[in-house]
């Protein structure tokens, strides 16, 4: 079933659909950062304390989807190189756009991003101190949970990291703008009459994903640079104090 060229495309399309669904849920979940520390921490805690088979079942399912998607992508790319060994002297493109031609490139950068992102916020090997960040909740104040909110703010205060995240989300947006419509062609559910509409839906979806994910790092940087107060300013104090002793004094007095 999956050994033929079409079979690989089915696998790529189906795993792509899984990932399309996942990124939407992930983005919607992330938006709770904007609602403040209590909200996002409660959400993060509820995910981390799911029954182990659901938590690890979903993680393995997603990991398998990414691995199968990338494996089929690279195997098709290698086969395609072999199928057209000599390039035309004059290479022209009539219809296809940048977005569809560069799916392998945007996908490869996304793969690198996924690895970095997991090491950054999930396994937390890049900044091990993120794992130590905890906060107490509950009426008695003695229930300790991981402080996802502080970790996210600390993570996105680094300009380079935030810019990388936003760039990666832009590439994800481009990948999805072609991919979401392409899926229906690959599994045989698209007609040219529908293609225009599907392309519009895919493009709309892709930009929502871009905006929804990017707003978190952008808002953190905006507040760090004094543009707008999205979050409780006390989470930004230490940063200011390093640069400005006077404000540090003021903060201590108040």
């Amino acid at each position: 079933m999956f050994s033929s060229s079409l079979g690989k495309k089915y696998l790529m399309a189906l795993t792509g659909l899984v990932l399309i669904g996942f990124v939407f849920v992930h983005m919607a979940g992330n938006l709770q950062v904007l609602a403040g520390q209590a909200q996002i921490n409660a959400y993060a805690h509820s995910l981390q304390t799911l029954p182990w088979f659901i938590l690890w079942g979903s993680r393995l399912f997603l990991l398998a989807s990414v691995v199968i998607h990338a494996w089929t992508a690279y195997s098709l790319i290698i086969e395609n190189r072999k199928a057209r060994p000599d390039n035309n002297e004059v290479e022209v493109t009539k219809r296809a756009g940048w977005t569809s031609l560069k799916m392998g490139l945007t996908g490869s950068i996304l793969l690198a991003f996924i690895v970095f992102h997991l090491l950054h916020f999930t396994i937390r090997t890049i900044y091990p101190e993120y794992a130590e960040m905890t906060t107490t909740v509950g009426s008695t104040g003695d229930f300790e949970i991981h402080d996802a909110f502080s970790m996210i703010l600390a993570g996105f205060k680094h300009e380079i990291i935030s810019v990388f995240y936003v760039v990666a989300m832009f590439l994800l947006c481009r990948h999805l703008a072609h991919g979401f419509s392409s899926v229906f062609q690959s599994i045989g559910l698209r007609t040219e009459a529908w293609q225009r509409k599907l392309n519009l839906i895919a493009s709309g979806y892709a930009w929502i994903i871009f905006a929804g994910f990017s707003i978190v790092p952008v808002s953190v940087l905006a507040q760090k640079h004094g543009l707008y107060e999205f979050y409780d300013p006390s989470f930004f104090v230490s940063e200011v104090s390093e640069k400005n002793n006077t404000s540090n004094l003021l903060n201590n007095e108040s």
Partner: protein
Amino acid sequence: MKLTLKIWRQSGPAENGSFESHVLDDVSEDSSFLEMLDQLNEQLLKQGDEPVAFDHDCREGICGTCSLTINGYAHGPENSTTTCQLHMRKFNNGETVTIEPFRAKAFPVVRDLIVDRSAFDRIIQSGGFISVRTGSAPDGNSIPISKVDADKAMDAAACIGCGACVASCKNASAMLFTSAKAAHLNLLPQGQAEKDARVINMVNTMDDSGFGNCRNYGECSAACPKDISLDYIAKLNRDHAKARIKEIFS
């Protein structure tokens, strides 16, 4: 008009090819692209040089024998046009025209601009037919076929098998050709009995011939002289998936 032709020359399948430039004077704007090449060959023969080998047959856009990648476009820059139907008035006086063979691993160069497209024949042999008792022609309208299906089947059957889809595809995929040939029969009652075996066998032969995989760019349909629609590729994907699923349960 006066043209500089940059033409691919290759003396045999195992030989390395390269480009050769020729200046051609007095090209009539009314001549077809192939007539212009005939003129070049006469000039080469007079000079005692080898003429350029290129494929052609009907010269009226129906047989699919002519090929050529002209300035990067399979069958030249005009939409819905075969090379034999392309006219020199579409080019500018003094222009350099680059002429290459259809490039794909599955289409090895035989000589100069001629490529071996028998991989297409093998795809047809593996399923592009229906097995019926031959004999006298059946009575007209003895098998009812809806107008919608008849039209779609006719549009698919318009494929002349020239290979421009493969040449224009960045991945040298033969999906447009294979899908049109499969859909033409799969849409009609006569094609139903062998439908599942047809798609599986044709796709297998296509893969084995060394064509690339479809990446949904749409370059094939844009280059197709008969404007075969991408809908047939979607239909092949669908029919193939159904056939494979049935295979699992049988």
